[in-house]
């Protein structure tokens, strides 16, 4: 849709701008490719440019939403962490739901296929992509194109092309960017006096007598240790820093092209001590060994290290929660009995709570990653009509994470006084692929294009995890020093796959295009009846109007894609481990299921693309309907059979919506160019059938469901209809038959059985937006350019778990100021928001309920970028171009959400989306850049 516009941007804003001649040459090359792309495939190829790379300077995927319809993302401020990437809905309950990213043909998963190492910690696998290396990107959303990705394409595909050497004199581009980030994450908490009064009541409710409480030094503000007024979350925030250095050298002659690039990126989070650093290196060498044969080589190495905290629902290790819950009358420093401040951090306090400063200082959680990619490819132009290529690629990605929690200042968690954990994870892929292409004319006006190919993939994933606890001293960090093993795990998953491709198209007078794609896939993930899978699709495109400057194209497509990411060996009868006392036993865990197949998605697309009024208006509108059938879910047999639940294909989900893209280019002069663009995408998701019943998942106080007739991952809980003021009002009992008390929440009894239990749960919200997208503008005047992008999401809910946790009043933690207006008695009913306080929450007032569901709609100024190419009238010898730039992200957000940030990410599980565990919000960032070309 926006190809011209992209070319335009490439030309005027691209990194190579100062070298005008070269830029033009490249532009022409790309224009040709682009034209072909428009004719042959529907998904638009996104030309990468500096504006784009600056928007996503942290990780390329953080800038995906807004410009491209159908792509929804959600990230928090956790540096280096993965986020939510959703292309046209969510299609699975139990399998991977993230798109694969193909970088120069090499597939990569968005994140390791292992659970979070610490809660909320899921380091992105995509840090190996330096945004400055990217030349173009294509988000493949339609089923027809995705047929060629077969069983990996159930969630869409992102293809990207990385820069390569070109013919011309050697050039060097150097870029330096520095900046800072800040964010507000300051929950509203009770101050020391308010908290002391609250604590007094909680303790007297638990049976402490007035005398005992008077003796308790906690209630004596003159005690040196308890005389402070600390706003604990403030102790943890800092200005984040970003720095990035990049160097690229490329060149070549007629036969040989080369490129070498190296980049170093460092980010520190707005939360103290959290940081992510990366080094990306690429080397590529292409050469012709004969006029018809070209050999390409690529070698890339990426290194990363990071330090992190669990910013998820493990509240004992979430620094922000620990700090919010800490008594405000205490200090991070230790005070002697005489009231003298000692230069050491305070220990665990009299209430058994962690010193947040000790947690941040003491937790030693680190990650390290190494990735190596290599590729050799041969292109053979057999004759003017026929060409062939073959490639072999190898990729190895290794990640090591460690966690160490000392005892000093950190409260014991059940039996865990200290703990050390370590995880090693690796992915190995070897892929071999060959393709033959033939094109030509059948008749004078009828051309054809045909491809046949074969690929083989050998993939292996390994993970080993160990945690030991209670080493003798805080200094002993290695696993072998633990007193005993808390948990050990290792997994290995192998997946061998073969694909046979056939694709072809007919083109009549450049007006009518017919295409068909076939992909026969064999996967080792399935048994005899599910191993062979045919993915197929067809499309028709018709240029209804085509003049020199205007065109209108109608298209319709169908394609079947799949999700083959099934682990667990269900094709085999398997013994599973069953421990008995100190011995390892086995039992029949899997019965053989030869029928298990990938989850298939039938994709239907239809729409129109047009450029009208002499390029003034570009518009694209389409409707998609995706039905995923055979969802892999667990079937439970009667308990007397004595068998674990077994997986089978049983369930359907539908995603459908409309996508509209619009660009207006009011000024298209040589010196002045201005365009405005907007996208909107709707999404309607519905689970159509789940024959094995609803699937419910719980994380802390949050519950979500996959249920027939509802959106996948809908929030599942109770509706609060008020607070009981008197005993007389209470006409229901708790699930276990015991009685509610005045001051408890009045939950809706939807089945009218006067008992509040699981049967009264209902859908109370959904993380899936009704519509979303972005809009923005680009303006250039001579060497100066300005770009702005707004993103928005409407109709998605957020479950504010962090707020719920700070309102529970079920222990001695400090709470949000909301509790000052809680229900106390019939005479003092508060503002009706919070129920009575009760240690241990005996009435389950704080189960999943609609009280904590908030509208997560937002409008955000995602990015503003200004760039200026310094005029170089008398070129200073070896310096060929200089550009300065400023880019600001997330400067402004409009939202009614009460938490830190309506954009929340809580994990890749489709049933755990839209939960706010109080991770740091996406920060405002201010980045200054300088590019110099030599």
């Amino acid at each position, binding site marked *: 849709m926006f190809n011209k516009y992209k070319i335009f941007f490439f030309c005027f804003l691209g990194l190579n701008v100062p070298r005008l001649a070269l830029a033009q040459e490249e532009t022409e090359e790309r224009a040709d490719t682009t034209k072909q792309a428009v004719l042959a495939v529907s998904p638009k190829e996104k030309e990468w440019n500096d504006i784009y790379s600056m928007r996503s300077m942290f990780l390329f995927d953080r800038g995906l939403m807004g410009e491209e319809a159908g792509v929804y993302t959600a990230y928090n401020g956790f540096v280096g962490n993965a986020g939510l990437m959703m292309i046209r809905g969510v299609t699975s309950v139990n399998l991977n739901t993230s798109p694969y990213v193909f970088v120069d043909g090499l597939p990569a998963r968005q994140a390791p296929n292992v659970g979070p190492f610490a809660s909320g910690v899921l380091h992105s696998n995509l840090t190996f992509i330096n945004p400055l290396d990217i030349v173009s990107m294509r988000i493949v959303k339609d089923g027809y194109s995705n047929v060629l990705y077969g069983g990996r394409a159930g969630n869409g595909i992102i293809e990207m092309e990385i820069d390569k050497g070109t013919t011309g004199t050697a050039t060097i581009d150097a870029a330096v960017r520095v900046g800072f980030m800040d964010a507000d994450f300051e929950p509203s908490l009770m101050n020391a006096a308010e908290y002391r009064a609250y604590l007094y009541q909680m303790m007297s409710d638990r049976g402490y007598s007035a005398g005992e409480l008077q003796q308790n030094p906690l209630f004596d503000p003159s005690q040196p240790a308890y005389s402070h007024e600390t706003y604990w979350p403030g102790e943890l925030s800092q200005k984040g820093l970003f720095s990035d250095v990049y160097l690229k050298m490329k060149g070549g002659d007629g036969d040989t092209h080369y490129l070498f690039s190296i980049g170093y990126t460092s980010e520190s989070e707005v939360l103290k001590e959290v940081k992510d650093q990366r080094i990306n290196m690429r080397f590529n060498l292409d050469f012709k060994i004969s006029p018809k044969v070209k050999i390409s080589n690529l070698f890339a190495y990426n290194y990363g290290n990071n330090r992190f905290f669990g910013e998820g629902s493990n509240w004992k290790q979430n620094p922000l929660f620990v700090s919010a819950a800490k008594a405000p009358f205490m200090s991070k420093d230790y005070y002697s009995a005489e009231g003298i401040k000692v230069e050491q951090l305070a220990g665990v306090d009299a209430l058994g709570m962690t010193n947040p400063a000790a947690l941040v200082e003491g937790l030693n959680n680190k990650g390290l990653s190494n990735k190596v990619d290599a590729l050799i490819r041969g292109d053979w132009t*057999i004759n003017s009509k026929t060409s062939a290529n073959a490639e072999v690629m190898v990729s190895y990605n290794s990640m090591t994470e460690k966690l160490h929690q000392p005892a000093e200042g950190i409260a014991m968690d*059940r*039996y865990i006084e200290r703990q050390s954990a370590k995880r090693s994870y690796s992915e190995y892929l070897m892929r071999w692929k*060959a393709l*033959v292409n033939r094109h030509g004319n059948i008749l004078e006006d009828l051309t054809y294009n045909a491809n046949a190919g*074969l690929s*083989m993939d050998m993939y292996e994933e390994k993970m080993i995890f160990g945690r030991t606890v209670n080493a003798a001293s805080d200094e002993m960090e290695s696993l072998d020093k633990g007193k*005993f*093993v*808390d*948990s050990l795990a*290792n*997994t*290995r*998953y*192998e*997946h*061998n796959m*073969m694909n*046979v491709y056939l694709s072809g198209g007919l083109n009549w007078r450049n007006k009518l295009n017919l295409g068909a794609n076939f992909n026969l896939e064999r*996967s*080792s993930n399935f048994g005899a009846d599910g*191993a062979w899978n045919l993915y197929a699709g067809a499309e028709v495109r018709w240029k209804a109007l085509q003049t020199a400057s205007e065109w209108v194209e109608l298209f319709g497509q169908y394609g079947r894609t799949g999700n083959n990411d099934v682990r*667990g*060996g269900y094709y*085999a*009868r*398997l*013994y*599973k481990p*069953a*421990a*008995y*006392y*100190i*011995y*390892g*036993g*086995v*039992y*029949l*865990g*899997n*019965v*053989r*299921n030869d029928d298990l197949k990938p989850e298939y998605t039938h994709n239907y697309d239809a729409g129109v693309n047009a450029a009208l009024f002499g390029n003034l208006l570009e518009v694209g509108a389409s409707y998609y309907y995706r039905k995923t059938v055979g969802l892999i879910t667990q*079937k*439970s*047999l*009667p*308990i*007397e*059979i*004595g*068998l674990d639940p*077994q997986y*089978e294909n049983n369930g359907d989900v539908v995603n459908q919506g409309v996508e509209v893209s619009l660009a207006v280019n009011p000024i298209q002069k040589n010196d002045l160019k201005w365009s405005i663009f907007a996208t909107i995408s709707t999404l309607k998701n519905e689970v159509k059938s789940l024959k094995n019943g609803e699937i419910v998942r719980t994380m802390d106080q949050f519950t979500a469901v996959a249920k027939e007739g509802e959106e996948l991952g809908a929030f599942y809980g109770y509706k609060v209809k008020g607070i009981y003021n008197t005993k007389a009002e209470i006409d229901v009992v*708790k699930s*276990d038959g*015991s009685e509610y008390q005045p001051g408890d929440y009045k939950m809706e009894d939807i089945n009218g059985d006067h008992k509040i239990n699981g049967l009264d749960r209902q859908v109370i919200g959904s993380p899936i937006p009704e519509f979303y997208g972005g809009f923005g503008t680009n303006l250039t005047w001579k060497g100066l350019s300005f770009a702005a992008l707004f993103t928005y999401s409407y109709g998605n809910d957020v479950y504010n778990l962090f707020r719920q946790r700070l309102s529970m009043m079920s222990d001695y933690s400090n709470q949000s100021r909301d509790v000052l207006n809680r229900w106390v008695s019939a005479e003092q009913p508060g503002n009706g928001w919070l129920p009575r306080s009760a240690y241990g929450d005996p009435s389950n007032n704080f189960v999943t309920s609609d009280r904590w569901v908030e509208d997560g709609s937002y409008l955000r100024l995602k990015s503003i970028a200004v760039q200026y190419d310094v005029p170089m009238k008398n070129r200073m010898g070896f310096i060929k171009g200089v550009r300065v730039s400023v880019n600001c992200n997330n400067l402004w957000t409009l939202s009614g959400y009460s938490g830190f940030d309506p954009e929340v990410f809580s994990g890749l599980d489709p049933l755990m989306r839209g939960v706010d565990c109080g991770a740091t919000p996406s920060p405002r960032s201010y980045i200054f850049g300088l590019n110099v070309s030599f």
Partner: protein
Amino acid sequence: MRIMRYIKWKLPVVACCVMLTACGDFFDVDPIDGASPDDFYTNNSELNSVAYGMYAPLSPEVHKLFLWGSARADLVTEGETKDVYVSEFINNTVSTLNPYTDYGFLYKSIARCNHQLKNLPRMQPNGDKVTATRLKIFYGEAYFLRAWCYFQLVRTFGQVPLVLEEVADDVTFEDEKGNIVKMNTITMTDEELRAVVLQPAQEQEVWKAIMSDLAKARVLINGTSYALGFAPPAEEPLIRASWIGAYALSAEVALWNGLYQEASAYAEFFIKQGKLGAASTWPQQYTTTAAASATTYNSFGFMYVFEQGFRTQRLQEFTSPIEADGGRYLVKPKMTVCSQLFNEPLDIRSKVSYMRVNRKDVIWKYIGLDEEGKSMRKPYESIANWYILKHADVYLIRGIAENELGNTGAALEMLNVVRVARGLQKYKRDDIALDKANMKEQLFKEKAREDAFEGKRWYDLLLRETRLGESGIIARTVSAKYDDENQKNEVYSRLSNPANWYLPIEPERWK
């Protein structure tokens, strides 16, 4: 030119075909997180692994055995924290909503026993791989454990489905037309499975199956020592089926079936092999988890280990009053009843069974580490052993059987053996009335002291009520634990109805 064309086009096609046909192994990936059953049954160690798997579902669930067998009876009452589902057991108002009625763990174990029995014929005695004796013991072990599971089920639930074949992979049955049909189990609906394999069996049928299994176990687990016919680790005589265990269980089952001669004979056989252990070390089976003391007093039970995978039970959670230890204090001893039962000051068992600690009455067997109420298990380390077949019970079972046969003297002898072994004075003939009824009372009192809080008391009452002709004893005994007259009467009338002696269950609910 032709050759070139051939090379250009046909070679790749041929190559593809070769690859397609040659990659059979390529797609044959062995999952690492499981082992193929086809590769099993080749040596002793593999058979052993399957055998351990049979017990695995049982040991984490002993809190249910506690609720079924102890909470319902007279020695246990509500603790300071109320859990409605636990209270339902204490007050004998158990509903089908109660998750502790889920008997799935027993059927898991039964399924694994059936699996072992189906697959053992694949293995023939083979020199150093597995001896003929050892192979027989593996058969016997599966029969023993299956019998124990059904013994537990039939006494607790009455009519239950009787599954004696492996049905995980497929089910063979006769259809309406009389044809033999074989169907893949996972493709069948619940209704189909309930119709063809899970019809509740008559109680008598279940008892018959139990006795048949035990008859095989007694013959197959034949050994001169505690059991396994080879040098086992010290704890194996407790945590696995044994020869004497088979006889102990046989004696109890025979008693339940009114076969008093057999019961006495099996018990006698046991008594010849076993020993009763000294009074002085009796508490150690509770205050330590050592295999030596456990096997001195018991022939079957479960042991736990915290520091290797947290293989624990939940009894500390149910009985401990200390929150930091993971205690919820849901149940406690009914002191008035306990003090009447443990009425001899010298009885070492009263000190270990329950205790008053920090102004709270607690069941001490699952939290205590001494006999003084000072030292407790560490937080969350709920690893006290759980005993199922106890040596002393076998003596008392023999006493009960002999008493029923009219041999009161023999019964007194058995009773006295146990008393002496616990450091108490022998009853002399003059001390107690030597009539059958009183002897029965004394034998069961001794059994209650020996087995307090170990999931047996309810079944003893049920045995007396339904088999030993003591009509009304359940209602009388259990209602006595209530101080409030109204409650007492309510419970009395509830337990006068035989329908309330068995737990209700809706298996579909616990899928």
